[in-house]
C-alpha cells in the first residue's frame, strides 16, 4: 500500500497538471457512476458542508478567531437568494456573489465592534448574533415569510437547462467547492494569508512585527462569511423551500464539528471532515437512536487522540501544546537511547 502511495506521490509531483486533470475527470464522472438520486443527494450534502466547513475553517483555522454562530451567515445568504429571486426575479448566478457580499457585510458588522475582544468573547458574540438573525428571520414576516417560510424558490437555469435534480445540482456544488479551494489556496499564499497565519500563531508577535491585526482579522472574518453566504445562496434553490428552523445553533455546531474532525488550518481538512461526518451519520443509521451517541463519542475520541483533526495542521499551535511537547520528549528520549 505504501509503495502505491509513494508512486502516486511521485507521479503527482512530476505531472501536476495531468493528475489534476485525472482528478477532475473522475469527479465529473461521479454522477454517471451513481445514477441514484439518493447517493447523489448525500454527495451534494457532503459538498455543501465542505463549502461551509471550508469557510468556517478560514475563520477558525487560519486566524484562530473562534466563530461558533456560523449558521447566521449561511442563513443570511440563503434568505438573500430566496428573497431576491422571488421578489426581484434576479438570476441565480448573479445572486451567488451578491448573497456572499451580504453575508460578508454582516460579518464585518459582527467583528468590527468585537475586534478588541479576545477569542471567548468573540465566540459568544457570534453565538448571540446567530440566534438574533434566526429570530429576525422568524419574526419579520413581511420580508422572510416568518414562520411560513419561503416556498417555490426558482431553480437555476444554465443556458436553458433547468438544474433541478440532485444529480445536475452536483455540478453547481462541485464547481463552488473547486472555486473555493482554488481561491483560498491563492489567498493563503498571498500577503493576506501570511498575515492571518501569523495572527493565529502569536497575535502579539504579529502586531509587533507590523501586521495590522485588526484589519486582517476583519478581512478574515468577511472572507469566511462570504463563503457561508455563497453556500446559503446555492442551498436555497436546491431545497426550494426555506424557513428559520433550518438555521439553528445546532447547525452551527454541526459545521464546527466537521471542521474540528477534519482538521483546522488546512484546505483538505474541512473537506475530509464533511465526508467523514456525513458518511458516518448515514452509515450509523442501523443503530437508530444510538446514532448521535456514537457521533458524540467520535468527537471526544478525536479530541483525545488527534486534537488537530484528521488532516489538521500538525505543525501549528492548533495541534495542542501539551501533546506536541510529549512527542518532543519522546523523540529526545529516543535520541538518548
Amino acid at each position, binding site marked *: 500500500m505504501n509503495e502505491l502511495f509513494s508512486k502516486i506521490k511521485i507521479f503527482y509531483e512530476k505531472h501536476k497538471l495531468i493528475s489534476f486533470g485525472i482528478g477532475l475527470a473522475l469527479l465529473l464522472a461521479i454522477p454517471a457512476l451513481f445514477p441514484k438520486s439518493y447517493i447523489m443527494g448525500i454527495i451534494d450534502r457532503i459538498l455543501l458542508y465542505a463549502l461551509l466547513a471550508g469557510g468556517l475553517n478560514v475563520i477558525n483555522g487560519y486566524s484562530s478567531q473562534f466563530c461558533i454562530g456560523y449558521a447566521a451567515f449561511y442563513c443570511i445568504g440563503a434568505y438573500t437568494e430566496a428573497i431576491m429571486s422571488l421578489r426581484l426575479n434576479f438570476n441565480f448566478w448573479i445572486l451567488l456573489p451578491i448573497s456572499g457580499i451580504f453575508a460578508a457585510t454582516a460579518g464585518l458588522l459582527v467583528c468590527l465592534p468585537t475586534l478588541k475582544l479576545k477569542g471567548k468573547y468573540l465566540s459568544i458574540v457570534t453565538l448571540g448574533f446567530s440566534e438574533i438573525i434566526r429570530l429576525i428571520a422568524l419574526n419579520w414576516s413581511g420580508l422572510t415569510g416568518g*414562520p411560513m417560510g419561503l416556498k417555490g424558490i426558482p431553480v437555476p437555469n444554465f443556458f436553458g437547462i433547468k438544474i433541478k435534480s440532485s444529480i445536475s445540482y452536483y455540478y453547481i456544488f462541485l464547481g463552488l467547492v473547486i472555486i473555493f479551494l482554488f481561491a483560498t489556496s491563492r489567498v493563503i499564499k498571498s500577503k493576506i494569508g501570511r498575515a492571518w497565519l501569523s495572527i493565529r500563531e502569536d497575535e502579539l508577535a504579529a502586531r509587533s512585527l507590523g501586521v495590522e491585526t485588526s484589519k486582517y482579522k476583519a478581512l478574515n472574518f468577511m472572507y469566511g462569511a462570504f463563503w457561508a453566504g455563497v453556500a446559503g445562496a446555492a442551498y436555497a434553490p436546491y431545497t426550494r423551500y426555506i424557513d428559520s428552523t433550518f438555521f439553528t445553533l445546532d447547525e452551527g455546531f454541526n459545521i464546527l464539528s466537521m471542521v474540528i474532525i477534519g482538521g483546522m488550518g488546512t484546505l483538505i481538512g474541512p473537506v475530509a471532515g464533511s465526508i467523514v461526518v456525513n458518511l458516518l451519520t448515514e452509515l450509523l443509521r442501523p443503530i437508530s437512536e444510538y446514532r448521535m451517541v456514537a457521533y458524540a463519542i467520535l468527537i471526544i475520541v478525536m479530541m483525545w487522540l488527534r486534537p488537530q483533526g484528521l488532516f489538521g495542521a500538525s505543525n501549528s499551535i492548533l495541534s495542542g501544546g501539551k501533546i506536541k511537547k510529549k512527542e518532543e520528549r519522546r523523540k529526545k528520549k529516543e535520541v538518548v537511547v
Partner: protein
Amino acid sequence: MKKVLSVLLAVMMVATILTGCSGGAKESNETSAKGEKVVKFGLLAPLTGTNAEYGKGFQIATQMAIDEINAAGGVNGYKLAIEVADSKGDQKESSDLARKFGDDKEIKAIIGDFASGACMANAPIVDAAGIVQLSPTASNPDYAGMSPYTFSIMGRQDAEAPFFAKYIIDKYLGAKSVALIYINSDWGVASHDNFVKGAEEVGLNIVAEANYVQDEKDFSSVLLKLKAADPEVLVIFDQGAVPQIVNQVAQLDWDVQITTLGPGTSQQILDLCGKNAEGLITSTPFFFDPESEAQTAWKKTFKEKAGFEPTVHPVVAYDCVYLLAKAIEMIGDGEVSRDAIRDNLQKAEIEGLAGPIKFSEAGDISRQYLICAVENGQFVIKEGYDYSK
C-alpha cells in the same frame, strides 16, 4: 498516521457505496421469504433530536397499525411492512431519505415527516419521484397543495379555528372578550389568523394577544400582559407548551376560563397539569372514550411499547397506515403501484381513530370537532359533532 487515515476513509467510502448498491440489488422483489406478497412503506420520523418524542410515537403507532393489519390477514392478500428512517428533525437528512425512498422501487408510499419544514423541502423530491408523501402532522397551510403527491391529515386550520371562535367562545361559553396566546410557528400563525377571521364574523372582542417561539419555558411575563387586559376567556394555540401555560396561569392566581386549540384531549395535559387543568375546554377531532374497550386497549398497548402516554400525534400516524391500507384495498386486483396508491388515496375515506378522513382536492382534510372539558381529572364530551350544524 495520515496514510492510515486516508486508507480508512477510502474503505468507508467504498463501504457506503456498496451498501447503497446492495439496497438497489433487491429491487422489484415484491415477495418475502415466505412467499407472501409485501407492500412496503417508508416512515420519516425524527427519532433523535428535539422532536424525538413525536418521532418515537410515529414509529410505535405505525408499527402497531401494521401488526394489526397483518394479523388480520393483510390487505388484498398483501402483507404490509414499514422501513423506519431517522430524519433527526433535519431538513437535509429528511430530503436525502426521501430521495432514498424515492429510488427504492420497493417502497410504495412515504409516511412523514413530522415538521412541516422538512415536508415542504421534500415536496419537490416526492413530486419528481412520483411517490406519495402522507404527513400525519405537517401543518403549513401551503404544504398539501405543493404537489399532487403531498397529503396531510393534520386538519386545515381554516375549519377548526373559526369553529373555535364561533361555537366554543361565542355560542358555548357566551363570552365577549378573549385574549390569545399562540406559538410563532406556521401552524400557530395560521390558526391565529383564521381564528381572528371567525371572531370578526361573530363580533368577538380580542382584547390582547401575544406570541412566543418554540421551546419557550417562561410564560409569566406574557401572561401578566394578557391578564392586564382582563379578558373573559384565554385561548391557547399550541400543542407542546399548553401544560406549562396552564400551570403558569394557576401560578399567577389568575381566575380565567382557559380554552385550548391544538392538543385535543391529550393525556399529557392531565398528567402535567393535575388539578390546574380543571375546567379547561378544548376542541378535538376525536375522543378517547374510557368506556370504549378498543380505544382503552390501544392506549394501553401504546403506553407499554413507548413508555409514555400518547398525544394526538401517534394517533394520526396510526390513521395514516390505515388510510394507505384502504387505498391499497381500493386498487383491488390491479397492480399496487405508486400512482395507483396516489389516485386511490385521493378518493379514500376511512373512519380513523382520530375521526373521519376524506381528502380535499389539494390533499388535506377538514375535520369535524367535538367540544370537551376537563372535569374531575378526566376529559368529558360536552357537545357532539353536530353542534355547529
